[in-house]
């Protein structure tokens, strides 16, 4: 997997969107839809998504970051990556 520095918000969101869509067999997900409450993904997916984020955006997740709220939706995940890479959502 290519490791990249966190880019602009749109680029991050696009990469995360593609990961989620592929994991959900191409299904479309609204930016604010709660992935876990809706049951469209299982708990194992949270582990896979966090691992993907760490590798793709070269960020290091710490104990305080291990909150499912950070990954609950596409928008939440994008904001989390921006925050961890020292950027602010636009």
């Amino acid at each position, binding site marked *: 997997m290519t490791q990249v520095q966190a880019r602009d918000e749109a680029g991050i969101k696009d990469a995360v969107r593609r990961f989620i869509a592929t*994991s959900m067999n191409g299904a479309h997900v609204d930016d604010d839809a709660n992935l876990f409450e809706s*049951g469209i993904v*299982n708990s*194992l997916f949270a*582990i896979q998504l966090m691992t993907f984020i760490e590798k793709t955006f070269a960020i290091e*997740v710490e104990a305080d970051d291990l909150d499912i709220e950070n990954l609950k939706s596409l928008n939440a995940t994008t904001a989390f990556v921006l925050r961890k890479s020292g950027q602010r959502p636009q």
Partner: protein
Amino acid sequence: MELKQVGVLGAGNIGSGVVTDLVLHGLSVVAVDISDEILQRAQHDVLNNIRLAPLVSKTLPRITKEEAVARMVLTTDLRDVAPCDFVIENVTEDWDIKKRVYENLERVMRPEVCFGANTSCLSITKIAGATKRPAKVVGMHLMNPVWLKPTVEVIRGVHTSDQTIDTLLQLLSRLDKEAIVVEDMPGFVSNRISHLFMNEAAFVLQDQVSTAEKIDAIFKKCFGHKMGPLETADLIGLDTVMRSLDVLYESFQDPKYRCCPLLRRLVDAGHLGRKTGKGFYVYPEV
């Protein structure tokens, strides 16, 4: 006997989950597999699971990487499990392989140690026959991901003693797991039924009645299942599903268990599901 150290045979997908669960709950583990490469991958997966566990469970114990490493011995030498108080066997669902493993295990382990056979379909009574301690062999069908599943299908073989069942329940209690004890027939309750779903779903796909997405959606949205049969098969591993179907077919001699040709073709092509990135679906690299 107090269970302090557990031997885990087979450190693949399920085996890594078993090691994760044991280590998280304070037990020491000796994990055995056939290559250093498999063991290194298992250690990576176990440590990643432990590090990220708080993300998916507020109730699982939290331990440090150092604590986890200190509780794990990874080895390719079966003799290293000799000091263990219980053995959980998760090797490939192939009778010839399992038989050889149990014969070797019998020579290595103290006579009072119980063996938990983690099999999806093979008869526990048949497995017990490969040992000289059939009363101390019990089936334990662990679900994936093991460390997140609260319930285990426990199988009593013909010769399994009540004491062995109690020992396993004691171990499962340490892992905060509930057991549902059933009697021994190939496939038990869970896989005898679930593999018919997965196999018939593959036939439905092969017959172009519908797409994989729609087949799974019917199960999720109409039946309320958390996962559809095709994505479940991808999660388990299509090679494992195929082997289990073959065991059920051989055991019952009933054509309802004949493996769907599409499923067999995917396995032949190396498309084994999530673990290879492609099965009935395509998965992103993680």
